[in-house]
């Protein structure tokens, strides 16, 4: 917000007042974030330094949609999830859920309703389940809290249903096990079952597979795809693995150092990555079926400076295409293809697209 000065010439800024939400209940996106910003104070009590975890992020998540949020460690992707989960309050900007600002949900009843609509699945299945209780404990507690209309026996039936929905059978037996009796992949499925028990509209999945073996990951990704189909749940899938993002997601958002640097339909972004950072991410994916891609960058992967950053593109120190302007003006997202935006001064629009430039 603060360090984004004038938009570069010939750009199509997306955060203008002209981009309002169409009226009508079906056309309001499930979640819409505008200018979402989160800064953290760092240093001692009297320090004034601010870490810019998320800066001026605009995005939407539609119903029954899987959106992948990709970026390296420290890019702010988990902060976005926590802002959506209301673990953090945004420094500025707002999040609307079904058209209503989150900040306006003040009562306990409203908070509870939101939390059951938008639950979170955590990265580490070994520490996110309480080892002292059976698997059923977490699911039943959630049901008691969030679905008070159910009777005791209905709760039990519902718990069995969600455990089966994530591919664990026989559900009755699984519910009576302790977490240590389950493998990592099974525990993470329980994580999804707990989230599913609340009848959610959007599940925030923060690196749900990165602690698991490669051979187990694909099963979890398939669970996400199935839940979207069968239960109509949307997902925000956070990962640093762009290949798995491609496997499940409809849309892709790439974050770097707190900025959303590129977003668009997954296949369009991968086929035609506009931002140099997206290109770098793609070149780093190990692919035994392809010859070794020698990326331009080896070894100098310097972490971006996000404490009190100056204006300018935050990727410029690592960027092979950086020009003078990149050090002065923070690039804003520009539409470079159909629904495909990138925040880069150098990136060019699709030649064949009907997006007018300048």
């Amino acid at each position, binding site marked *: 917000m603060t360090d984004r000065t004038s938009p570069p010439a010939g750009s199509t800024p997306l955060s203008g007042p002209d981009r309002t939400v169409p009226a009508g209940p079906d056309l309001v996106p499930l979640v819409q974030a505008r200018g979402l910003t989160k800064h953290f104070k760092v240093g001692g009590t009297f320090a004034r330094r601010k870490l810019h975890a998320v800066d001026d992020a605009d995005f939407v998540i539609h119903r029954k949609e899987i959106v992948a949020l990709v970026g390296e460690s420290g890019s702010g992707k988990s902060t976005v999830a926590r802002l959506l989960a209301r673990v953090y309050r945004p420094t500025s900007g707002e999040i609307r859920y079904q058209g209503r600002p989150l900040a306006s949900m003040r009562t306990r009843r409203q908070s509870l309703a939101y939390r059951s609509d938008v639950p979170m699945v955590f990265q580490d299945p070994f520490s996110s389940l309480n080892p002292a209780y059976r698997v059923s404990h977490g699911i039943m507690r959630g049901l008691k809290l969030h679905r008070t209309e159910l009777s005791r026996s209905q709760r039990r039936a519902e718990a069995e249903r969600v455990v089966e929905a994530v591919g664990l059978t026989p559900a009755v037996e699984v519910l009576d096990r302790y977490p240590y009796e389950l493998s990592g992949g099974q525990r993470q499925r329980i994580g999804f079952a707990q989230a599913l028990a609340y009848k959610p509209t959007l599940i925030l999945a923060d690196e749900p597979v990165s602690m698991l073996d490669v051979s187990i990951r694909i099963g979890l990704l398939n669970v996400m795809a199935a839940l979207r189909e069968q239960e109509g749940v949307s997902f925000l899938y956070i990962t640093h693995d762009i290949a798995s993002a491609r496997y499940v997601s409809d849309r892709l958002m790439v974050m770097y150092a707190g900025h959303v640097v590129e977003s668009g339909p997954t296949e369009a972004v991968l086929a035609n990555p506009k931002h140099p950072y997206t290109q770098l991410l793609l070149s*780093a994916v190990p692919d035994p079926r392809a010859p070794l891609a020698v990326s331009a960058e080896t070894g100098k992967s310097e972490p971006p400076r996000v404490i009190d950053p100056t204006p300018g593109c935050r990727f410029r120190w690592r960027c092979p295409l950086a020009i003078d302007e990149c050090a002065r003006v923070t690039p804003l997202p520009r539409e470079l293809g159909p629904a495909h935006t990138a925040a880069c001064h150098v990136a060019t629009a699709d030649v064949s697209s009907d997006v007018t430039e300048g």
Partner: protein
Amino acid sequence: MPGAGILEVRDLRVEYATSRGQVAAVDGVDLEVGAGEFVAVVGESGCGKSTLLFAVARLLSPPAAITGGSVTFHGQNLVTMTERQLNVLRWRDYSVVMQSAMNALNPVMTIAAQFKDAIDAHSALSRHQAGQRSVEAMKLVGIDPVHLKSYPHQLSGGMRQRAMIAMALLFTPDLVIMDEPTSALDVVAQRSLMVQIKELQQRLGFAVVFVTHDMSLVSHFSDQLLVMYAGKMVEAGPTRTVFDTPSHPYSRGLLDAFPSIRGPRVTLTGIPGSPPDLTQPPSGCRFHPRCPLAVDQCRTREPELYQVGAVQSRCLRHAPDRAPRPQVAEEARP
């Protein structure tokens, strides 16, 4: 010993003493590493790959113990050596890079102090020489030597892992054993670390034994590949051959488990089920409960390692008495 094998593991067996009896986590594994060779060991969690590596480095502690076989390094059997004898070889001739640099580095000591500890324990260099050696090692891995004065928390994850590798290279050993050194990193840092390990290896000529669960990671870096399942090696051979024509259904499953960023989007299944409980390994082929190609014989007959061209495969489909080979590739089990 130029060109010759520097490490030879024969029929190695490691058992854990548990309340339910002895469990063999590594069961008759053979491994040969030539000078300057990059050997990758892949498999899922619990397949015994880290135990194998700890056994080779003689770092096992109870309840695990080597109960059979030999580990010959430069012609000496490490298994029968005493700690005092091992101490002469450790760090100078072979070194180990641990999985999580976060836990493997001491958080309350600077990098320089930790390097000096290692140098003092294994050599008689002066303070000045030790300092010089540390600076050289940091330069090797591309970290500014000013970070020798840093504490581990002041470095990024990638830099910590590099510092661990610098530490392993303090005495330019002939063999570096690596246990998933990249697993805590994101893809970009992971790729650049792999490229750097390969460059260092080519420049300094050390051999690498690299353990990982992500088969795709080593596809372009390793010379030999060893696939482990439930404590046994199920396939071993030149990396390219195993990737192009995996001869064991488990290797095929591992290869098909990760999505690609190229080509059409296809639905993958991964490997259904989970690795077996080693206290009660399945009868016959240990992979049969999860194998899409399993036939009745797989449940009763334990396969040996069969030679298939340049690779060895522990799958009954390659047994010499099982000719002609059944064409079962399309008929998946229900």
